[in-house]
């Protein structure tokens, strides 16, 4: 039931009208009141004029996965009034612009309408036409502050910070907020059955999106060369990396850059640049989305076979093809796991939120250089572009990057002869040498058949010796990647397996299932290759529900292919329409499967 610090509202806007900053302001104000909150931006692949929504969920218990049940709709887009009003839960509220009368057909008997003449207020109080449009959003922030009990001191403090250097904008924002607030106080009954009350649950948290956290990870890991081609939803990784570098990577004396960001002509070139820079010794990465990964295919195989460290951030969006560029999905698991032709296998990391985006970014560089291979970090649009409340990021100043085995001039000198792919260490990895160090370390990297000495070969035995080691190397990486996270519940009857951004919804669902008498264990896969604990978990349950956000059950396929678990043990719950997963999706998916199973059992009994 909704109530204090437990409700959700949705803002329906037209994109390109400046609603994003108003909605961000709302979220942040609630967060600063110490209340767990999340915001999901459901935006169109368009610059101006199409419908766009922003969902805010407030939950004192800390459940901040998406919820599809809205107690309040802020309907600012007349074009979508119909479906927006229909989405409100019975007994809920609709806040709309009463400058124009609302079509009688749209009214619902079980929903309370709250009208505020936003457009009229703005026309009366602001002179410029652009300002009138922009400020409409800020006016509703004021109204919501009145309706939901948002702390006005907090809001004003935020405006101070935000417009520190823009006093004119600060004044108009203040004015707009006051307008909306006062109108609500004077004309509306502000006693809603839900609202906000200050808590102390966010003091050790920050509100951050996964792409910014990823960029921070790259900065802290010491990445110096980045190459990319713009694509939603990965673009803000590089935008953030650039602004971080401008702040933290300028030589204090010369003012010159301790980094290079190359905007490539396409993703083929971006990954090519990464391979070239890595081969020459740099910590280097690219950020992209599904279409980019598809284009990178050939060179990812080159990186794998020639053993060049590379870090690829794939911020997944809805495929196939161009798909829905501004909707989320976990659809690239298989494409990344086996990217490129021939026998290739990559290392994948699956962060579940911006906090893990930060730590996994650093980890990805360490793994790539230690194992001399491309490493993918698969986040998604929901993690990457939405603001999440996560634990404050910490940095251990004693951290030293694991650059893997790279021979110095002196070490090369001490060798009788250097061979690129022999001898191998306990990770099944051989020492690298970099250009520009010593002639003794010179070798010829190639994507063509080679033997362990690095020489060209077409001999079956020599070829196989190398690719067999690569398979061994991939298996060894299972011990080095982030371990799965396992929640055990005494008396559990089945297991749930999931990954990445599904985590919040699954954890919430565990509680809801428990209320219904379904006890479940939960394992969150955090990387591929799979740790032996993954297989152990799966085989310890007769039934495991694999919850993921794609049509074909790609995680399930990967688990079946890469563990010896039997097919019958793995059931699939898949949600792939493009919106972030909700606990309801998980609960309904699992209970429906369980009911179907019981039904089948009953029928089997009857036949007997």
């Amino acid at each position, binding site marked *: 039931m909704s109530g204090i610090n437990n409700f959700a509202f949705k803002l329906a806007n037209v994109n390109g009208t400046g609603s994003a900053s108003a909605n961000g302001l709302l979220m942040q104000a609630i967060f600063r009141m110490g209340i767990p909150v999340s915001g999901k931006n459901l935006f169109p692949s368009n610059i101006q004029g199409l419908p766009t929504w922003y969902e805010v969920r407030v939950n004192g218990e800390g459940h901040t996965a998406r919820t599809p049940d809205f107690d309040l709709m802020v309907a600012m887009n007349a074009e979508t009034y119909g479906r927006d009003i229909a989405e409100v839960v019975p007994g809920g509220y609709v806040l709309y612009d009463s400058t124009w009368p609302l079509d009688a057909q749209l009214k619902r008997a079980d929903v309370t309408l709250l009208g505020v003449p936003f457009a009229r207020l703005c026309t009366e109080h602001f002179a410029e036409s652009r300002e009138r449009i922009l400020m409409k959003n800020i006016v509703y922030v004021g109204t919501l502050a009145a309706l939901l009990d948002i702390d006005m001191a907090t809001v004003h403090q935020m405006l101070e910070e935000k417009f520190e250097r823009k006093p004119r904008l600060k004044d108009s924002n203040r004015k707009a907020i006051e307008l909306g607030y006062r109108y609500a106080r004077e004309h509306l009954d502000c006693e809603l059955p839900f609202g906000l009350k200050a808590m102390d649950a966010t003091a050790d948290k920050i509100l951050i999106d996964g792409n910014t956290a990823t960029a921070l990870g790259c*900065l802290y890991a010491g990445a110096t060369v980045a190459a990319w081609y713009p694509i939603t939803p990965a673009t803000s990784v590089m935008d953030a990396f650039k602004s971080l570098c401008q702040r933290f*990577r300028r030589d204090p004396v010369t003012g010159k850059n301790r980094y290079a960001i190359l905007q490539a002509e396409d993703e083929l070139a971006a990954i*090519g640049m990464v391979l*070239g820079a890595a081969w020459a010794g740099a910590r*280097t990465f690219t950020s992209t989305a599904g279409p980019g990964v598809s284009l990178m295919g050939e060179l990812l195989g080159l990186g794998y076979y020639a053993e060049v460290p590379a870090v690829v951030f794939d911020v997944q969006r809805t495929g196939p093809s161009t798909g829905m560029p501004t909707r989320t999905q976990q659809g690239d698991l298989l494409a990344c796991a086996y990217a490129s032709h021939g026998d290739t296998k990559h290392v994948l990391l699956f962060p579940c939120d911006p906090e893990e985006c930060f730590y996994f970014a650093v980890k990805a560089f360490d793994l790539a250089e230690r194992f001399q291979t491309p490493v993918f970090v698969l986040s998604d649009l929901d993690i990457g572009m939405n603001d999440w409340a996560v634990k404050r990021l910490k940095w251990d100043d004693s951290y030293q990057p694991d650059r893997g085995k790279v021979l110095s001039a002196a070490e090369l000198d001490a060798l009788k002869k250097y061979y690129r792919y022999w001898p191998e260490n306990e990770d099944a990895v051989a020492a690298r040498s970099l*250009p520009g160090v010593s002639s003794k370390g010179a070798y010829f990297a190639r994507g063509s058949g080679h033997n362990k000495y690095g020489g060209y070969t077409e001999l079956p035995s020599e070829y196989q010796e190398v690719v067999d080691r690569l398979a061994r190397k991939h298996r060894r990486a299972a011990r080095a990647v982030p371990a799965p996270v396992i929640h055990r519940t005494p008396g559990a009857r089945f297991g749930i397996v999931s990954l990445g951004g599904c985590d919040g919804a699954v954890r919430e669902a565990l509680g809801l299932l428990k209320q219904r008498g379904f006890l479940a264990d939960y394992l969150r896969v955090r990387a591929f290759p799979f740790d032996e604990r993954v297989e152990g978990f799966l085989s310890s349950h007769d039934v495991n529900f694999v919850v993921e956000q794609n049509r074909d059950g790609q995680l399930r396929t990967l688990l079946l292919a890469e563990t010896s678990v039997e097919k019958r043990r793995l059931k699939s719950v898949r949600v792939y329409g493009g919106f972030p997963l909700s606990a309801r999706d998980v609960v309904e998916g699992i209970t429906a499967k369980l009911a179907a199973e019981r039904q089948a059992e009953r029928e089997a009994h009857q036949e007997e």
Partner: protein
Amino acid sequence: MPSIKKPPVAHPSLQPNTLGLSLRDYEGAMSTLCAGCGHDSVTAALVRTFFELNVAPHMVAKLSGIGCSSKTPTYFLTGAHGFNSAHGRMPALASGAAAANRDLTIVGISGDGDSLSIGLGQLCHALRRNVRMLYLIENNGVYGLTKGQFSASSDVGSRSKKGEKNLQRPIDPVLLGLSLGASFIARGFSGDKQQLVALLKAALSHRGFALVDVLSPCVTFNDHEGSTKSYKHTRAHRLTVVETDFVPPAQEVTAQQEPGTTLSVTLHDGSTVRLSRVPEDYDPRDRSKVFSWLEAHQHRGEIPTGLLFLDEAHGDMHQMASTVERRLHDLPFEELCPGSAALEAFQKDYH
């Protein structure tokens, strides 16, 4: 059998250079290309160039795509790292390597298929980026390694070995480079080593993207009658636009100035290229003039060679990116990681 005792004359090529290295030290593995392949002559010119320029082999990074031409980095400078990448993708890898380590001398070897078809986009963009490198196209008008298909540099009317006539207009890397704003453009011929060595030396001393198109006949698939990329055709139609002389930094330019016909350009590393016999109506620093001059002459079927265009003013990739004048790949970690206090402070904006 008469025995003649030869006087112990050291072959000039066995004389060490200023690094104490002999010509041999600049060679590579035994070539596996067809006997007589133009590419092998280009390799020989590269060996001599590096030797005479006194380049330390380990400071060179050799990159290539895929093709017979792209195999050649194995055949020179065993002491240098090499990367035989993927078809058409060498420019991106070279850009990345140059970004990571600006001290490397980057040599990219490509073919006309590698550069003008599958890798055309990458060539254009590496050029725009003005990556400091020698970009060498071993141009034979054909796909050698896949056995004789027409390439994008095949001339209209040129016949394949099977007698097929090419009807599509060629992409000429020189005119392409001119129109894209390349800062160094030269064309050589694998059959003229002396000229080629001078061109390569100048290219390696250029601070920026040095595009060198080398006509390098394929004896197996494109050296027949009716081909416009054969040895015979190239010899018959080649026109040396300017004689190119390369003078290293330490040496003085002594040649007499013949007004109108001789031109000296000083490169950023202090070396000089001396261009002589420059035609009256030609100025290798005037992009549009060069373009129309070459177009007119090529229209007549002539094949102009020499250092055709040079612009020393344009900044290279690192200058445009304003990077520190140090190698990025091994900057000390302390200079890269802002540390825990900065992270703490940074997150104030996220609360």
